[in-house]
């Protein structure tokens, strides 16, 4: 267990200052890593082009770089964000054939053709993506799997593309009368493009947008509930991945001067995936390493070329068994092991930074009691934000919800004020979580309206409701495994929700988001575990992290779905204190089976049964109610 830095311990300087410092440190560290990765590509590229441009090592180097552009896009789209689409070879083919046609048939210089086809591919991807990115999970993978099959059929039948043979080009990327100058020039152009792609890609993954994308990949529902506009991000990822694939294809055509028909198809698709997974699926530099590994292995010797299938089969298996994050993951582990030996202090810091912002070191004081800091900056600013008054903040009228023929909610009417804790109880299957999902926007009601501060939000998606102040937790804890506690909370503090990917690359505000997340963690007395990897926490702590994430945006309405589930008596008592404090600032809707807890914290309690509200009253009348006793406590009805 690594020592907790002094500034992260409870009692250290106030959250905002600490958070700002932490944010600056992380931002600086991220930029250093991004520039280092880019520098390595540039230096290696220049050295290879200077000494071996016309030798085997140089030609394979350039070929690998063209694939690396494609796999870098896949690392962002498929590896990091887990939007699995098998359309890269199609767009790679579009880029390659596009350059070939524009160059050979229209006489346009290859570099200009490359720009034209990359932009054109982006437009095609935008149109196609509007349809395919609506497909969820595995459906996107299966639907997009048809694209290379369709494209293969077209390409091999199209005579103007050279049919099943392929299409030659007439002009290099770097046209010159000297062959050697062309080769070197081609190589340097490709190196420059890859360097830019590595920098932009690494920067994106290390930014606040990167955190959005990671969350989207791990849990789309949680991402939407925290304000991530998931349809937009999925479309942007598809377009970005497709444009990089087209750019890679264009570079391939401009440097190899021939586009084989086999460039488009399932075999190429699988080869690209193999490069990605061998190199490291969640890392841009890993994706580049994977492209090099496969290209050099394939041509390393005659024996290997003959037995390439056997060798690649063994290679993939062994690497994935050792490290699912591929060669990049192995490299990271070796570096950490080396640093632990050479400089243990620096190693701990490096581990916390991690390649993708993951934090593995230090478990903080994971068993300490949870106490709310009522005097902290977070509580003060939240209190100042409240507008006061008893006017209804959240209301719903005539809510019906049916799944096919099954009616789950029937004519639900609620009107809740600005502040306070409001319990929602009922037997299993009563429709409590469904009502919470309808209020939070995860489900659209079959009929009826939901209003927030007098505005109709019935048709608004979860992400938009979050922006308007509706936050939530889930019945089963839904955290982002593989990321630190602070990153889990920072997801709810991102300014990037409305930004485009391009803007996110230029301006990252992850440091500021982490700062606000630190404040929320401090508020709930959880600052000590901020850097801990979230899945290493106890269930109680994970629930508290989810609560911290829900309150981090200082919401106007907080929807809590069974937050006491799995907690001990002591932990429930602590939670009750936390809920009372939060209820001073916001409107809390508490779905819970622990009736004592609900009765002790809620000022009004609603009981739901068979989709309808059968009781409404305060804690005392709740305990005394015959309906409640019969339905929830197993008491026999009084005569």
């Amino acid at each position, binding site marked *: 267990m690594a020592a907790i830095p002094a500034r992260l311990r409870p009692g250290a300087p106030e959250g905002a200052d600490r958070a700002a410092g932490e944010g600056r440190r992380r931002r600086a560290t991220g930029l250093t890593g991004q520039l280092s990765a880019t520098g390595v590509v540039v230096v290696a590229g220049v050295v290879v082009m200077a000494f071996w441009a016309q030798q085997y090592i140089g030609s394979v180097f350039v070929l690998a770089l063209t694939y690396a552009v494609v796999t870098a896009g896949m690392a962002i789209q*498929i590896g990091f964000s*887990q939007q*699995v689409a098998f359309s890269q070879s199609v767009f790679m083919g579009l880029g390659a054939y596009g350059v070939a046609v524009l160059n050979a048939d229209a006489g346009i210089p290859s570099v200009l053709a490359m720009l034209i086809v990359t932009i054109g591919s982006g437009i095609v991807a935008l149109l196609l993506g509007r*349809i*395919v990115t*609506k*497909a*969820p*999970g*595995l*459906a996107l*993978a*299966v*639907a*997009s*799997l*048809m*694209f290379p*099959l*369709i494209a293969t*059929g*077209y390409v091999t*039948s199209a005579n103007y593309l050279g049919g099943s043979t392929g299409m030659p080009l007439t002009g290099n990327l770097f046209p010159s009368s000297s062959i050697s100058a062309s080769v070197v020039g081609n190589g340097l152009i490709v190196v420059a493009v890859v360097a830019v792609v590595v920098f932009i890609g690494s920067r994106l993954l290390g930014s606040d947008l990167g955190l959005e994308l990671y969350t989207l*990949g*791990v849990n*789309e529902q949680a991402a939407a509930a925290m304000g991530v506009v998931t349809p937009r991000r999925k479309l942007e990822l598809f377009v970005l991945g497709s444009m990089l694939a087209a750019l890679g294809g264009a570079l391939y055509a401009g440097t190899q001067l021939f586009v084989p028909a086999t460039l488009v198809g*399932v075999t190429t698709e*699988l080869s690209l*995936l*193999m490069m990605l*997974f061998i190199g490291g*699926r969640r890392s841009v530099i890993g994706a580049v390493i994977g492209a090099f590994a496969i290209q050099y292995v394939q041509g390393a010797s005659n024996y290997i070329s003959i*037995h*390439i*299938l*056997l*060798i*690649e*089969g*063994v*290679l*993939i*298996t062994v690497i*994935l*068994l050792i490290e*699912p994050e591929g060669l990049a993951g192995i490299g990271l582990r070796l570096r950490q092991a080396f640093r632990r030996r050479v400089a243990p202090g620096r190693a701990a810091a490096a581990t916390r930074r991690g390649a993708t912002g993951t934090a593995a070191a230090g478990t903080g004081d994971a068993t300490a009691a949870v106490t709310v800091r009522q005097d902290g900056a977070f509580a003060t600013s939240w209190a100042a934000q409240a507008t006061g008054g008893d006017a209804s903040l959240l209301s719903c009228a005539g809510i019906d919800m049916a799944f096919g023929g099954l009616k789950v909610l029937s004519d639900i009417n609620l009107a809740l004020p600005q502040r306070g804790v409001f319990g929602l109880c009922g037997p299993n299957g009563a429709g409590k979580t469904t009502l919470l999902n309808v209020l939070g926007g995860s489900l659209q009601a079959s009929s009826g309206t939901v209003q927030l501060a007098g505005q109709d939000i019935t048709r608004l998606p979860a992400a938009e409701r979050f922006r308007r102040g509706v936050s939530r937790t889930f019945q089963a804890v839904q955290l982002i495994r593989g990321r630190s506690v602070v990153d889990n909370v920072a997801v709810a503090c991102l300014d990037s929700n409305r930004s485009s990917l391009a803007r996110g690359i230029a301006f990252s505000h992850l440091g500021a988001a982490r700062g606000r997340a630190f404040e929320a963690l401090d508020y709930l007395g959880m600052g000590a575990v901020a850097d801990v990897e979230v899945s290493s926490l106890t269930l109680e702590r994970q629930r508290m992290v989810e609560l911290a994430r829900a309150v981090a945006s200082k919401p106007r309405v907080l929807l809590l779905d069974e937050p006491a589930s799995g907690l001990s008596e002591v932990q429930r008592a602590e939670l009750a204190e936390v809920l009372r404090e939060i209820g001073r600032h916001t409107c809390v809707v508490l779905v819970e089976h622990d009736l004592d807890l609900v009765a002790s914290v809620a000022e009004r309690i609603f009981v739901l049964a068979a989709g309808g509200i059968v009781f409404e009253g305060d804690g005392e009348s709740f305990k005394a109610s015959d309906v409640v006793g019969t339905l929830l406590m197993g008491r026999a009805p009084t005569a």
Partner: protein
Amino acid sequence: MKLGNLLIAGLISGSIYAVFAVCIAMWFRVSNILNLAVGDFAMLGALGTDHLVRVLHWPTAPAIVTVIVACGVGAYLYDKAILRLALDGRRRQEGIVITFFFTFALSFFIEGLAEVLFGTNIYAAPTLWQGNSLSWGGLHFERAGLLVLACAVVSGIAFTAYIRYTLSGKAVEASGESYVGASIVGIDTRRYRRNIFIMTGMLAAVFGILQSPLTGYAFNSGGTIGFTGFIAAAYAGYQKPGRAVLAGVAIGVVESLLGGYVSTQYNDTILYAILAALVLIRPSAMGLDVAVGG
């Protein structure tokens, strides 16, 4: 008669997709892993039997038994050596994509091994039901094709009945639904995963032996032919063996009709466009709205 013969051709080619789809769906049901190597077991069955009979002059029956047993033993060893480490080890690997890569690598390995053992030419196992094609009212039936069709129907019905009506089948379902939950209630998830993997590997080998007289196999045919089953299984959500058979047969029939009436050049292109559209229109109906992450 043209329509009839096109339907027969479609049924036969659809049966090929169907058997692989059944194998893929069954193993996915128990393990949540997509098996891209299933076609390679078929290739091993076909080329292995051919090698023993044609090159080493074994009698056909012992050759077939030996090859099928060898495929089963190979699947057992792969489970023991690799899958146990990947799926049950200290660093359990989850997610459809990452686990898919293990069978992807297995496919590469088997094809590489077959290239070394059997060379690069196309061969086929001996025809089990010899004689001219059967004719009835202008319709023509290849004998091997009928065996293929029978194999698809029997395997689809058998696996569906196994899941629906046996306690062991329910355990298979439970293992796929929740690895942890099934283990807690005493289901040996590893055993079920291993047994179904071996069973589907051996079934694919049998199928390869039956089907190879129709198309022949080279060392790298398995990936291609298994891939068609992979697509067909998608339309059963990679879960339901009975529906996988129907999907495979339907794809074969549509492909054949498109080739006969629309375009022989673009029939596959049109077919894949239709299949993509189906997935995009009704993903949840096919059970494809599941996350792929891990």
